[in-house]
């Protein structure tokens, strides 16, 4: 094949690749676009998905504020925040121990996520039973503990790679320089893994924020979190699509922002945790 042919062939492949990327991009962006439009449409206008030009209404937004979406958002944020605080404190200590002292050996390092392969249904009924016994059902506490059950292992696993990346000598240097082990961890190791801790916190927050399954079963009523509230727009009269669009936007926008800020560290955390042992 001549150079010219090769060049053309390469150009065709590049174009094909770019075309594919545009299609994939559109498949992600279009639903959002549709959601934004949907949140400003009336019920009748929503029946026509192709309708792009219309008189926008704020009715759907008013409806979600009336129906307590704000309260659910606050509840979701609180549950996610507390879950993350616990996960970071316990997870960073666990990750440090696994990374530095090989606590639990390679088994601990790799099996920490083992519970994730179980369907959540296996755990949800024991949690439900316990929350009933403790009279905590339909409260945010009933959701908090199950959230810890999947956020804490993920955060720990995520942080192991970051702790692995801190040279052992740096910590030993701190010991020689006059710090105790705990001080060395706090003043030298933790500051060096702080980008990872930040990323793990956001990652854990998003995991908790997005959970529907546990929240729907353990706190479906007065303590509904945002995903449960969104699901509640699927009523016996039918799906209130407009309000649902608006509520989904409320749930999605913070996650999008957070993902944007942590994307690089997210990849590093996941690959670091996976590759190093």
């Amino acid at each position, binding site marked *: 094949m001549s150079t010219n042919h090769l060049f053309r062939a390469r150009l065709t492949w590049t174009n094909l690749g770019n075309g594919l990327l545009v299609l994939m991009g559109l498949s992600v962006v279009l639903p959002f676009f549709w959601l934004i439009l949907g949140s400003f449409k009336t019920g009748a206008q929503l029946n026509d998905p192709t309708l792009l030009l219309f008189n926008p209404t704020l009715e759907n937004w008013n409806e979600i504020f009336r129906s307590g979406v704000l309260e659910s958002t606050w509840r979701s944020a609180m549950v996610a925040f507390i879950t993350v605080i616990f996960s970071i404190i316990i997870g960073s200590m666990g990750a440090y121990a696994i990374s530095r002292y090989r606590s639990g050996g390679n088994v601990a390092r790799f099996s920490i996520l083992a519970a994730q392969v179980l369907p959540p249904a296996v755990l949800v009924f024991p949690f439900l039973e316990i929350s009933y016994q403790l009279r905590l059902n339909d409260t945010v506490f009933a959701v908090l503990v199950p959230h810890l059950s999947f956020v804490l292992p993920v955060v720990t696993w995520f942080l192991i790679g970051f702790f692995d990346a801190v*040279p052992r*000598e*740096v910590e*030993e*240097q*701190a*010991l*020689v*320089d*006059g*710090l*105790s082990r705990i*001080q060395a961890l706090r003043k*030298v190791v933790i*500051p*060096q893994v*702080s980008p990872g801790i930040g990323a793990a916190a956001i990652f854990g927050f998003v995991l908790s924020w997005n959970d529907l399954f546990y929240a729907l079963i353990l706190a479906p009523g007065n303590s509904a979190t945002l995903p449960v509230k969104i699901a509640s727009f699927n009523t016996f009269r039918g799906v209130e699509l407009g309000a649902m669009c608006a509520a989904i936007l409320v749930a999605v926008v913070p996650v999008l922002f957070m993902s944007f800020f942590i994307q690089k560290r997210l990849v590093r955390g996941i690959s670091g945790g996976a590759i190093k042992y």
Partner: protein
Amino acid sequence: MATIELRKVYKTFGNIDVVKGLDLVIPDGQFTVLVGPSGCGKTTTLRMIAGLETVNSGEIIIGGKVVTKLEPKDRDIAMVFQNYALYSHLTVADNIGFPLKAIKFNKSEIKTRVLGVAQSLGIQELLDRRPKELSGGQQQRVAIGRAIIRSPKVFLFDEPLSNLDAKLRLEMRTEIIRLQRRLGTTVVYVTHDQEEAMTLSDVMVVMKDGVIMQMGKPEEIYRKPKDVFVAGFVGSPRMNLMSGKAKSGLFTTESGCQFKIDSSINGEIIWGIRPEDVKILNTKPDAPQAKVEIIEQLGPRAIVTLQVNEQQITAVVDNDHLQKIDNRSDIVIDSSVEDHHYFDAKNGLRLIDN
């Protein structure tokens, strides 16, 4: 300043004995270098002195105080690691001032001392930078600055020059010597590079398999190695060592090559001669015939690899002298009996103190 004493120190990792009953006195204010091949226990010894490794049995004493069970922070030592171990989240100034901050010095005092140390090391321009913005040599200087700022009793160096390029390594070597002379602090320095050990040390400790093979002044170890391991390890290029039989002032190698030696030596021995003690001549009666195989130029001198029968011998000769040798395939080698080293073939120990 302090003397360091190790008394019957043992260290094992699992089933492996890494340090086997080490008895060592590191003199006050001297530059002591622990040298040996990989796995000889030198770094473990240094780490035990620092308190970073526990001791299985035995005692470590620094400045008359038993520190065996003390934390590193309570031993009044400073250490420089091979990879510098700088705190990447802190600036150069904060790195250097870190040991003072750890013992709660006041801020203005820290600032003054950091500036003083930085000036003495020529890094005052770098104080606001982060470690990742520095070259290897600059990072090394910061690590040294952090070590000297607290004026500790002992400096410990763990192969600190290994990560530098050859030119910088020579520069830093000189700087470390100058620094030690100026401060007069006891230094324990670990290296696998015998040349570095020779140039730096006041006292050189050659280790192998967790025990001390020989300890003394570098020139003494070079001139009179106690055994065949030290003879082969110290010196570059390494000493020519040949097994064979000595009888009536003549040494016969296994390949049948013969050399004149001290007539008091008899039996199965290992005969050694340093490359710089091998003389290459045009002719001399009774001297072994040799052929030049390879010449490696070093500028004023050259390393010449010779074949004597089937025996390979290395010589270091002046280049001027090498030019005078007219026929390189027809030469002889010679040496003075005083320059010979004799070792017992069975236990490898030096036979006579010539």
